[in-house]
């Protein structure tokens, strides 16, 4: 372990507790994410993975704890209490477990909505279409074209989102999330429902998101093979608490994790 001061954190959640009435969804969860890493959160169903994501992106407001986002330039941002759109504007982007695309819009428009700057009012700009507005359109159009190529949907640009195959939808969602120019992207089960070859392509895409676009990736995924090959570090959640943290090899060998996944009476572990 390197020294605390030298680690460049990008997203840091400390002692999060999230309750819904009497149900505790997250219990004293601390997760630290380093800049530029591919980090995964795994755990059985109901462990609180999506709750953690929703807390990090402002959809849920945890009752206790702090979340800090350290943008590359600018002061650290306290995420708790911020609205989802403010967090997205600050540079934390996400996808959803069941894809939430704008299904009646084209692939191009889906990404374009992500690429546009939604700050300010812009009523006059939208009407008069002055040079500023046109420049903005140009910039966002170029970004859309670039991202279409990045996720390999260039030839599907004019299709309606609902006409896409499942794997293509997942890629479109990633492209839309990337269009907001994030520093961190949170992917909630990006490979759910895809076939094995699509899974490989997605793993490749996620790696390229980090390598080529310099975006740190936080990942929830059920497919162990995919997670273990992709993630550099993992957190394991069970019943709303972090039960383990470490590299894929460490996690694979951790008896607590094996217990959580296979029950306590396991005889042997298979890879």
């Amino acid at each position, binding site marked *: 372990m390197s020294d605390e001061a030298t680690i460049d954190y990008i997203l840091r959640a400390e002692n999060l507790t999230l309750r819904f009435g009497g149900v505790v969804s997250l219990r004293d969860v601390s997760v630290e994410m380093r800049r530029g890493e591919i980090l995964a959160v795994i755990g059985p169903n109901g462990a609180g993975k*999506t709750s953690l994501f929703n807390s990090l992106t402002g959809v849920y407001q945890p009752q206790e704890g702090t979340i800090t986002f350290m943008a590359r330039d600018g002061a650290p941002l306290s995420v708790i209490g911020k609205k989802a759109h*403010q967090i997205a504007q600050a540079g934390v*982007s996400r996808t*959803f477990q069941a894809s939430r695309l*704008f299904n009646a819009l084209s692939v191009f428009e889906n990404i374009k*909505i992500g690429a546009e700057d*939604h700050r300010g009012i812009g009523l006059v700009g939208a009407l008069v279409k002055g040079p500023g507005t046109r420049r903005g359109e140009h910039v966002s159009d170029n970004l859309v074209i670039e991202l279409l190529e990045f996720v390999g949907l260039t030839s599907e640009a004019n299709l309606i989102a*609902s006409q896409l195959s499942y794997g293509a939808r997942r890629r479109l969602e990633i492209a839309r999330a990337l269009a907001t120019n994030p520093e961190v992207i949170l992917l909630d089960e990006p490979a759910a429902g895809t076939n094995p070859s699509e899974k490989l392509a997605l793993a490749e895409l996620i790696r390229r998101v980090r390598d080529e676009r310099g975006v740190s990736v936080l990942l929830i995924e059920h497919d162990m093979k995919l997670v273990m090959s992709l993630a550099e570090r993992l957190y394991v959640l069970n019943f709303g608490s972090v039960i383990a943290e470490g590299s894929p090899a460490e996690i694979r060998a951790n008896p607590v994790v094996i217990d959580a996944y296979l029950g306590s009476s396991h005889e042997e572990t298979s890879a």
Partner: protein
Amino acid sequence: MTILSLANLKRLAMILIVTAVIAIMTGAAGSSSAPPTTGIHGSFFERVSWFGLFTAPRWLLFFTLGVIVWLLVSLYRPRAQTIRRGAESFFALPRAVTSRRWARVTLMLVALAIVIVLPKFVHESFWMYLIVEQIGVWILLALGLNVVVGFAGLLDLGFAAFYAIGAYTTAWLTGALPAPALFHHPIPTLWVIPIGILAAMVFGVLLGTPTLRLRGDYLAIVTLGFALIIDDFVETQSGVTGGGVGSSPVPHPALDLGFYHFKWGLSPTPYYYLCLVFIVVFIIVFTSLEHSRIGRAWVAIREDEVAAESVGINPLKYKVMAFAVGAASGGFGGVMSAGLVGIINPSLFTYQVSVNVLVLVIFGGMGSIWGVALGAIVIQTATSYLDNYQPWGYQINDLYMYIGALLIVMMIFRPAGLLPSRRRAREFAEAKRGDDVHTDEVLTGDQP
């Protein structure tokens, strides 16, 4: 399958029961103008003109119409597939035409030419007046509500409030209300146009900021309440608004450019052109908004608010904007109405007005600017005709029953409206297929 099959005969019985109920409920007995004692005899057995051909009892007319409907349905059902396919190919032609830019532009220019020369062919000033008051103003209202309901997907049941604000602002500033005009200095009606629009927009923001945090049904109820408050205020605060009696006459607009004078007087034709200019302006403004960053943000919120937030869209801000923008044309409708009618009173801004505007938007095609304009023209022309000629024993009070029936038929056969917006039509298709995940349980995906 023979037409006299058991299922078809059952359907005939159902249809006849429904038409009998309609025949009893409508007509003279259902109106307030006829003595209440007439009851079933007054309406049911009343002799009415059959399309001007001959006179016969009303029940027979309804019976005949019921049988005709039954015949149509019975003949349609076994051939539904073929007819539907025929309709598809029939509608493919206008779709192919409107997808070409030059064709669209030509179509618009032709439409514009028609509406410009229209007054030359309407010789009765009464009808010209109706065209402005019953069609022109309502197109403005429908265009405004379309921004709120069609673009942003917010159900507003109180749009008449903005109409009222436009009209009463006009009356107030021109000194037609019991309350003294601003700075005790009445201003010309024409100058009120920008102020009336602005006032409605400000009210849109004031109403929207606290209420647009609500979603769906809750928002609809709150907007309804807001309209009722405005309605009640103008009705009861007679010291300010003139109460149920209304304002004193709002002066007719006049233009004075020094070298050129023009006065809008009693003839409706100049109002027609004033209204037309603003309708064109609003259509241009709303169309460019629809295809702007803002329009796309509206669609995103309408389709999936959570996803919209995840790409940095502040839903509240854009919803308030939709309210304000929509209120602009509603407010201008009010200014127009006040300038034309002269004396305004609360009966012009009832809940019925809000519902009627919504009907125009749904009928024409939510989110489709040309659709709602056409919808307003069709429905308002039909109701003006029915109200003034009262054919077939038609009574004014029955209007909303027929409109309700029309909407039901629309929802079955053309749910996205007369001229649907392409996006909206796709949304309807999605919803029909049922694979659209829009509920919040998606967020808590961890639960099995």
